[in-house]
Structure formats: C-alpha cells, structure tokens
C-alpha cells in the first residue's frame, strides 16, 4: 500500500497543491511569481469563456457517451460470442487502441483536408466538407475521431463482462422461448449494468481531460468551437502566458471531474452491494 500511496502523493497530490497555490498568483512563465489573492478566481469565474468551455466539454462528453456506449456494447457482445472469423475481426477492431492520440489526430487532419484529403483524392463529394473549419462539423469530427480511438477500449471492457454472464441464464431463456433480441435486452443488458457504470465513469473522466487529440486536430476549433476545458487551460497558460488563470481552470477540471465521477457511481450505487449472481 505504501509505495502506491507514495507514488500518488508525489505525482498526484503535490502538483495539485502546487497548482492550488499558483492559482492565487500572477505569473507569465518566465518572470517573478507575485501573489494577488482571489483576482484570478474572480476573473475566470466571471468570464463567459469559461461557461462556453464547460458547455463544449459537456457536449462532447454527452455525444461521446451516446456514440461509444451502444457501439461498444454491440462490439463487446459480438467479440465475446462464437461467430465465424471472430478472432480475426477482433484483432482488427483493436488496432486503434494501439495508436497514439497525436498520431491519430495528425493522420485524420491530413485525411480531412478539403483539397488533398480522402474525399478529394477519391472523388467523393460528400466527404469533401469543411470538416475542421465549420463549428458544427468540427465538433462532429472530434466526437467521431475520439469514438474511433476509444470504442475498442470499451469493447474490451464489455467483452470481459459479457463472458462472465452465466450461460445457464441464456439456456433458461431459450427454453422459455425468448429470441436473440429478447435475450439481449432482458439478460445481457441488465447484467452489464455495473460494467456500464465503470465504462461511463471512464468516458466522463476521460472527456474532462481530453487534450492531445483536440489540440492537434483543431487547436480549439474554428472560433473556439472545440475549446474544451483542458484545451482552455493549456491555451491560457502556455499561449496566453497567464499561469494563474490556467491554474484556476485546472482546479475546476479536477473538481468537476470528481463530482461527475461520483455522480455516475451514485447512479448505480444505491444497490451497490447487491450481487447479481443467481442464488445469492
């Protein structure tokens, strides 16, 4: 327990305390650090840009969840099953998981170029849009690329969970005359409840801190359309050279992420100690 605690303290708590202290100072990165009290907090909390960033973050979070969860469940169920070519397809599905976010973003940026990208080169007019330059399309593109990268990860989680569902439940349902679809909605989904909680917590926490993909893809998007909180923090601190307000945003991210994660856990948590095993 002690090594883990030491690790967490050194790399988690100490920087957090450092950022907390920085949020009460004024620092441009290369000069003196001067304490200025609550000025940064007042400035950031009354900045409409903060509300906008929060809105964009929650929008991308919600869309990511809506896209990733159904597809991950379906993929997970498929991979856990006994279909033909399952193992080959499983390997292909997991490839995005092996790539770095920055590499994925650079590749998609080249593919989505309106003049030299995929659509233009293959001659598909539908794919030649202002993907990264139109605010609405930019958000859709970000959600698409994020989902492309992380659906394999969540499929992995769901696959493990589906494998654990006792086959006897399905047998009993089959004897009672339930079809495949009915079995899915009445057996598989309810059994996946806690896995969904886990997966959703990861999506929520991940969306709050998502940075590198959006940074490379849109740098905050056309007119701040994809300026999520993590990006806002970086741009204020390292491009705008205002470390104090950036620290405030960092702390906001931590607080909101923790609250959301606790909220998701609470959603399934009332009967957290209830076992789902038959006979228990």
């Amino acid at each position, binding site marked *: 327990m002690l090594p883990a605690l030491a690790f967490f303290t050194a790399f988690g708590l100490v920087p957090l305390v450092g950022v907390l202290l920085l949020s009460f100072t004024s620092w441009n990165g290369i000069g003196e650090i001067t304490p200025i009290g609550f000025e940064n907090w007042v400035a950031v909390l009354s900045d409409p840009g903060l509300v906008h960033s929060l809105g964009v973050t929650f929008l991308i979070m919600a869309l990511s969840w809506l896209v990733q969860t159904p597809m991950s469940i379906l993929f997970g169920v498929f991979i856990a099953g006994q279909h033909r070519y399952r193992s080959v397809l499983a390997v292909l599905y997991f490839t995005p998981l092996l790539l770095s976010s920055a590499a994925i973003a650079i590749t998609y940026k080249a593919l989505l170029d309106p003049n030299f990208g995929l659509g233009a080169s293959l001659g598909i007019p539908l794919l030649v849009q202002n993907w990264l330059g139109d605010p609405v399309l930019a958000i859709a593109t970000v959600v698409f690329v994020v989902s492309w990268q992380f659906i394999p990860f969540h499929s992995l989680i769901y696959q493990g969970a589906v494998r654990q569902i006792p086959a006897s439940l399905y047998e009993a349902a089959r004897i009672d005359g339930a079809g495949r679809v009915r079995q899915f909605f009445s057996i598989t989904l309810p059994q996946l409840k806690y896995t969904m909680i886990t997966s959703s917590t990861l999506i929520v926490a991940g969306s709050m801190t998502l940075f590198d993909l959006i940074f490379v893809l849109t740098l905050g998007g056309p007119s701040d359309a994809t300026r999520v909180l993590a990006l806002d923090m970086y741009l204020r601190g390292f491009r705008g*050279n205002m470390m104090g307000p950036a620290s405030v945003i960092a702390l906001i991210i931590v607080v909101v992420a923790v609250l959301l994660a606790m909220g998701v856990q609470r959603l399934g948590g009332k009967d957290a100690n209830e076992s789902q095993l038959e006979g228990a």
Partner: protein
Amino acid sequence: MDQKRVSRRSFLALAMAAPIGASALAACGTSGPGQARAGEASIWYLTGQPQEGLRKASVDAFNAAHPDGQLAATFFENDAYKTRIRTAVGANQAPTVIWTWGGGGLRDYVRNGQVDDLTDWFAQNPDVKSKRFATSFPAATIDGKIYAVPCEQVSPIVMFYNKQLFEQVGAQPPTTWGELMALVPVFQNAQIAPISLAGQSRWTNMMWLEFLFDRQGGPEVFDAIAAGEPNAWSNPAAIAGLTKVQDLVRAGGFVNGFQSIAADANADQALLHQGRAAMMLHGAWTYGSMKEEGGDFVPSGKLGWIPFPAIEGGAGDPSTGVGNPASFVALSSKASDEQKAIALEYFKSGLLTDADIDGWVASGAVPIVNGVDSKFSGPDAPFQQFVYDSATQAKSWVHSWDQALLPGPADEMLRNIEQLFSLSITPEQFATNMNAVPTS
C-alpha cells in the same frame, strides 16, 4: 520453507525495482534532451529544410574550428519551439543561445532579465554590426540597447502568383486593391481558387491585415498599437483594413475550406504549385520549400511575385516591408561564463561566414549581409534580387505582429483574427476586443 519463499519473492521484487530505481536516478544526473554537457554551449534551432541543414552546417563548421569550445545544437518544430523555449527559460534550463524572432518575445525576456545586453559587445565588434542590414536591428533593440544578434535570412511577405493560371484567364497581376477584388470572380468562373490561405494557422491570416493596415494608414497605425496607446485599434484606417479583409472573405476570395488548412504541412503552398489557386500571400521562405516540393513549378518559371497591392487613396508607402527582418540569436543570462564565451565566439565567427552565406544564397534565400546581391546568380537570382531590394530599399518595416507584440496579447490577437476571418465578429467588435487587451 516459508523463509525461502519470502526471500525469493523479495529477491525478485528487488531485482525488478533495482533497474527502475537506477534509471530514475540516472535521469536525474545526466542531461536531458537539449542540455549540453558541462563546458559546452547549447543552441536550439528550428527544423525545416533547407534552413535546418544550413544551421547544422554552421554549427559543425564552428565545432571543427573550435575543438575546445563546442556548441551543441538541438532542433525543434516551429510551434513546439515557441512553447518549449518559454518553459525552459522559465525553469532556468534555457540553452546558452536563444533563437528568437525579436520584437515582443525578446522584450519579454529582457524585462525578466533572461538575456544579456550586447550593446557593448557590438561596440567592440563593429564589423559584425556593419556587415548586416540596418533594417534588421530595430527588432533586436529594446529601450535603446541591443539584446540579440541578427542572423540568417530576411523574410519579407511576398504576394506570389501562378503565372500559368493568370495566362489561362488572361489577367494581369493586381497592382491595386480594386484590381484584386475584380480578379476574384474572374478566377471563380474558371474554377480556380483566387487566393490560397492556411486559415487554421492564423498567423497566415494576420499577414493580410499587416499589409492592409499599412497600405491604408501607414506605419503609424500599428506603431500606436504596439506602443499600447488607448483605443489604437479603433483608428479609422485599422477599421477600414479589417472591413476590407472581410469583404474579400465574403466575395469568396479565399479557397473553400481555408479554415481547415494548416500551414505546417505546406498544404497552402501545394494549392499554388498544383495549379488549384492563383495567388498566395506568404513569407519569402516559402520560395525555398516550393522549389523543393513543387516539382518543376519554380524552375520552369511559373512562379511569379509582386509587392502587395496598394490601396487607392491609402496613406501607406508601397515600399514598406512587412515580415521578419531577420532571425535573431540572444545570449541567456543564466549561462556560465565559459558557455557565454563560446556563444559570443559563435556570434562573431560562426554566423554568416562565407560558407554560410553561400549556403543560404544557394537555397534561394537572402542572408542579411550588405552587398550580398553580388553573389546572386543562377535561376533564383531574380527572386533574390526582388527580396534584397525590398529589404534594403524599404523606408520602414512592419515586424510580424505576433512577434512584435508580447506573447499574451499576440495570442489574443490571433484568436480575434480567426473570428474575424470566420465572419463571426465585426471589425468594430474586433477593435473593442483588442483595445481591452493590455499590449505592454
């Protein structure tokens, strides 16, 4: 039995922990990337051929001539460098020689005591000063003292155009703003994008405003902004410039989807040399990259260049230069005396040597050396002469805005420029937003 099991487990744990611990400690001791060994001076340069090769060659030549005072060079990509150098300077891990664009970024270092004053050194080495263009020193001079040595090439912003496409539609390159606007529908009818622009990079959009402000109202317009005068952005000439650029966007002057195109991959240059766009406003350094990447576009003479059009009734001087007057190298004040000595020796005898100058000229660039036009020969000579004349005959010079301003206001400005070009804010809103940002 129990004792043996425990000791084997703990032995294995120790065996796995030892290399991890050792490497962690080792990382503390040795130098990280970009740090020189003790007694060695370090310099961080930008990547990007052909400049990277020339920089490396100059460092190698210096090291060969100075075996007991070596210089270690590390190369970084442009945007990554901007963030990295600030973080390094702030953490007291700056390289001995700090490469900079001068102007506001340098002013920031000076204000925080991070670079040394070189005025006396220039007094002791007058030939270093007289060798270089006079127009290259203002961007290195803060509060009357010189804090950096100009080097490398002058990069004015040039209006490039595709001669083949102009012949195809039977048009002449524009000399006034009215002619430019009139060309837009002509090219659109021929299914050619009138102007190529990498809108996502934002500083490319900024170049248009730099010219428009100057052509409309002369250098005083931006000088007032850089000096931090109140409501400097609401100057009627500034508003007129902002309005004109929005007119051009509305008329469809820029290539479709320009907000998605980024300059890093040279996608905007590709539009010009692939014959998809007719004109492009860009830095002179792109001549070198178009020569390398454009196939026979440059050698066959399809690339044309003109000064930025004048604005009818504008107060600006068409000879004004806009862009980067030079690159600069500054001396970190936190370096040791030994490292500083090596760096100063490099400034004196390692930069802009004859071999260095020949290398820059051969790549199609114009190094900032007085009289270098006598060395222009070969296919790049017409362009080089154009750049040399622009640089030496300019009565005034507009330093690239995002370098002239301090980094914080510069970033705010780029944000507003992006919104201006997306037509999401009006010129008046732009002025209001920028007036509220402290520029000093």
